[in-house]
C-alpha cells in the first residue's frame, strides 16, 4: 500500500519521535541523536521505530533494533486503514466502496483477522445507504441498528448488539413484526445482520408459542435464602396443582384440538410469574409429576455441583486413568531471583493456577 506508507506512516513515525511531521529523515535523526544522552543511550523502542519508518532508504527498518517495531507499526497502520474504511463504509457510494475494498484486500496479506473483517464487509458492497431509509418506528430503529452494526469489528459489534438487545427486551412480538417488515421490504439489509434477527425471532417464538414456564425460576443457592424460597415454592406448587386439576377437567370434556395462544405484548418473559399450565406443557408436567421430582430441585442440584467443582479445582484436566477431572496446576510460588518478573509469563500463569 504505497500511499499509506508515504503519508500516514510518516505521520505516525513523526508522532513517535515527537518531531514535526514535515521533518526529513536527516532532521529526525539529528533530533534522535540530540536526545540520546537524556535517556542514557537507551532510547525507547518507539523512537527507533519512528526513525526507521522515516528512513527513505529503508535500511534502518531492517536493523534488529528497529525491525520488530516497524513490523508492528505497519500492521497497526493497516488495521487503522481497515477500521477507517469500516467507519466510513456507508458514506461511500457503492462503486467507490467497492474499489476501496478491493484496494485494501489487495494490500493485506498474512493478516487473517483483517482479511476476515474485509471478507465480512464484502457482504454489504451491493447495499446502498439509502436502502436503510424509508422505514418508520421500530422498523426504522432496526434498520439503523443494522446499518450501525454491520461494518463494526466483532468485539465492538457484539457489545453494541448486546446493548441493543437489552434495550429491546420488551415487546418481542412487535420487534419480530418489524423484522418481518424489514425482511420483506429490504431483504438485502435484513441479511446483513442475521444474528439479531434470529434473537428477535427466538424471543417472539418464546412469547407466542410457549409463554408459560416448565421450570421454576432459578432459586438462589445460598443456604439461608434457599429455605425461604423453597417454602414459597410450595405455595406455587399448591396453586399449580389446583390450576392443573381445573385445566385437566376442562380439557377432558373439550375436544382434543389445541388453540394457539393469542400473541400478547405483555408481560416480558423475564418476570417470575407462577405456572400457567396449558396444553403444550401438560405432558411435560405429568412427566415430572410421575418422577415426583420438581425441576427446580434438579437445577439446584446442578448449581451446587458447579459451585462444588469450582471450589475444588483451579484448573482441571481429564485424567483417563481415573476418568475424572483432576487439578493440573500447583499453588503459586514466587520467583526468588526475579521478583519483578512479568506476571504474564506463561510459567507464572502455570504457577498461579489461573484457569482459562
Amino acid at each position, binding site marked *: 500500500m504505497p500511499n499509506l506508507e508515504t503519508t500516514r506512516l510518516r505521520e505516525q513515525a513523526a508522532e513517535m519521535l515527537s518531531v514535526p511531521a514535515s521533518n526529513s529523515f*536527516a532532521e529526525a535523526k*539529528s533530533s*534522535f*541523536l540530540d536526545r*540520546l*544522552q537524556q535517556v*542514557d*543511550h*537507551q532510547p525507547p523502542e518507539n523512537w527507533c521505530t519512528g526513525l526507521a519508518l522515516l528512513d527513505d532508504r529503508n*535500511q534502518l527498518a531492517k536493523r534488529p*533494533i528497529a525491525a520488530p517495531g516497524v513490523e508492528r507499526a505497519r500492521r497497526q497502520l493497516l488495521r487503522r486503514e481497515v477500521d477507517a474504511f469500516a467507519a466510513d463504509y456507508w458514506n461511500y457510494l457503492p462503486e467507490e466502496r467497492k474499489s476501496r475494498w478491493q484496494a485494501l484486500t489487495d494490500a493485506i496479506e498474512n*493478516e*487473517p*483477522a483483517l482479511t*476476515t473483517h474485509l471478507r465480512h464487509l464484502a457482504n454489504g458492497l451491493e447495499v446502498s445507504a439509502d436502502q436503510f431509509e424509508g422505514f418508520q418506528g421500530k422498523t426504522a430503529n432496526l434498520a439503523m441498528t443494522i446499518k450501525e452494526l454491520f461494518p463494526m469489528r*466483532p*468485539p465492538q459489534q*457484539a*457489545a453494541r*448488539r448486546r*446493548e441493543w*438487545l*437489552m434495550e429491546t427486551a420488551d415487546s418481542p412480538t412487535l420487534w419480530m413484526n418489524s423484522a418481518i417488515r424489514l425482511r420483506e421490504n429490504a431483504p438485502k439489509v435484513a441479511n446483513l445482520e442475521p444474528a439479531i434477527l434470529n*434473537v428477535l425471532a*427466538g424471543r417472539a*417464538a418464546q412469547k407466542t408459542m410457549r409463554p408459560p414456564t*416448565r*421450570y*421454576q*425460576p*432459578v432459586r*438462589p*443457592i445460598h443456604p439461608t435464602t434457599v429455605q425461604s424460597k423453597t417454602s414459597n415454592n410450595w405455595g406455587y406448587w399448591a396453586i399449580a396443582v389446583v390450576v392443573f386439576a381445573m385445566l385437566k377437567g376442562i380439557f377432558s370434556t373439550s375436544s382434543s384440538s389445541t388453540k394457539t395462544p393469542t400473541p400478547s405484548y405483555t408481560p416480558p*418473559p*423475564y418476570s*417470575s410469574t407462577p405456572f400457567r399450565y396449558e396444553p403444550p406443557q401438560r405432558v411435560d408436567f405429568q412427566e415430572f409429576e410421575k418422577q415426583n421430582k420438581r*425441576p427446580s430441585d*434438579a*437445577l439446584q442440584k*446442578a448449581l451446587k455441583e*458447579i459451585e462444588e*467443582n469450582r471450589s475444588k479445582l483451579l*484448573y*482441571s*484436566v481429564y485424567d483417563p486413568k481415573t476418568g475424572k477431572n483432576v487439578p*493440573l496446576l500447583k499453588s503459586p*510460588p*514466587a520467583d526468588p*531471583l*526475579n*521478583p519483578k518478573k512479568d506476571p*504474564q*509469563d*506463561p*510459567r507464572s500463569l*502455570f*504457577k498461579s493456577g*489461573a*484457569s*482459562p
Partner: protein
Amino acid sequence: MNEPSLPDDLALWPEDPYELLGIERGATPKDAKRNYTRLIRVFKPEHHPEHFRRLREAYESVVRSIEFFSRFADHAEVPTEAPASDGHPEISPAAAPRIDEASLLWERACEGSEDEAYRGLQNLHLRGDRSSSISLRLYWLLTLDLGLDAEREPCDWLLEALRSYGVHGSALELYRREVEANPAEAFHARFDELLTLDAPSPVIAETYEWRWTAARKMDRFDVIRADLEVAHRKFFGGDETHWLRLLMVAADATAWTTGSDRDLWIAIGKEVEQVSHLSTRYGDWFDQFEHLNQISKEWFSAKGHWRQISLENSRYKKNVVPHELFLDLIKVAWHAPLPPYRAVLMKMLAAISINTNVWLQCLDEHRQKYPAVFGAFALILQYAAAQSETVPEAPAEQVARRTADFVAGFDQFKANLRESVVQFCQESWIDPLEMVQAVVDNRVDWRSDLSPEMLVQIDDDWPVRMLCQANRLFWQCD
C-alpha cells in the same frame, strides 16, 4: 572496612552507595563484592525485593565508579565524592578535556556531520578514552548508518563498552535488545567474549539465558550442549540457585528436541537431579520441570500418533492438519513472548474461526488422550490474551439478558449444544463461564428445554471454553 549492617527500614538506609555497602572510597571491587554478597544474604530477593534492588543498584554504581576512576589513576586521586545521583561517576579534571571533545563531536553529529563525528570519536577511543559513553555514541552512529565503518558492526562498540566499563548499564541492555531481535548475535564470537568477562554471577547467568533462548529460536542445540558444560563448572557447587534457573531455561528450550539432540534433554534431567537437594527451597521449579516433562512426553506421543495416521491413510491427512497446527503452536509458544509466535497463533485461530466443529473434535481428543498438552494449550491462549488488546467485559445485566435469550430459545438448537454455545458466545462476546455464572447468581429465568445437567456440562466443557477464548483472541491479537 566496615562490617555491613543495615536496618530493616529502607527509609533509614543511606543514599551514598559506598556508605550503603559499608565500604570506603578507594575500596577495591573485591571489597565491594564481598560486602554486597554479605548484605544480600541478609536481604534475600525473595523476602526483601526492594531492599535487594537498592543493594544491587548501589553495588553496580560503586563498581562503575571504581572502574572509571581506576582508568584515571595516573592523573588523579581516588574520588572523594560519591558518584552522581544518576549513578554516573563525576568526571575528574584530567578526563574533562577529552569528554569535552567528545561532546563537541557529538554536537557535530547532531548537526548532520555524522561521518566527521564518528571518525573523531573513534580517534578518541584509539587514544585511550575507553569511556562507556564514547562507545555507546559510536554504536548509535554506526547503527544509524552502517556505511560509516566497513570494518565494524554496531555490536562491536557495545562489546567494547562492556569490556572497558563493566558488564552492566546501557551497553548491556542494548546488547540484550540486539540479541533478542537478532538471535544469531548470540552465536557470534563477540558473545563468547562477553561470557568470559568478569561479571557478577547473576549477570553471567542472565547472558547464558539470552544465548539459550536464542539457541531455541534457531534450533542451535549444539550451543546449549557446549555451554552446559562450561556453565556447570561455573555455577555447580557455587551459585546453585542460578544454576537451577539456567537448567529450567535449558529445559524449556530442549523439551521438544528430537533425534540426537534428545540426549541433551536427558542430560539436563540428570543435571536437575544433581541439584535435587534444592527441592525443598525451590520445589515449584522442580514441579515445573516435572510438568514440562509430562507435556513433552505427551507431545511426542501425540505427534507420533498423528504422523502415523497421516502416513497410513492419505484420506485422513486433512483431518490431521488441526492436530499438527495445535502441536506446533505448543512447541513455539511454550514460555515465549507473543511476537515470535504470533503468526503461527493467528494461523491457528483463523482455522478455528472457520471450522469450529473440527477443532472441537481436535480439542476433545487431546483433552482425553493428552491432558498435559491440552493444559499447556490453555495456558498459551491465556498468556496470549494477556498480551493482547483488552476488550471491556460485558456488563452483568447484558450477560444475564443474553443468557436468558439463549436459555429460552434453547429448543431451537438443542441438537448441537456445544456448537450453539460457541456460536452464541462468539456473537455475544460472552464467556461460557459468564453464562453459567449468570444462572448460578440467579440472574436468569429458567424456562427452557435446557436441562440443569446441560448447564453443568457447559460449565465443565473446557474445549468449548477454549474455542470461545480462541475466537475472541483472533480479534484481540490483531
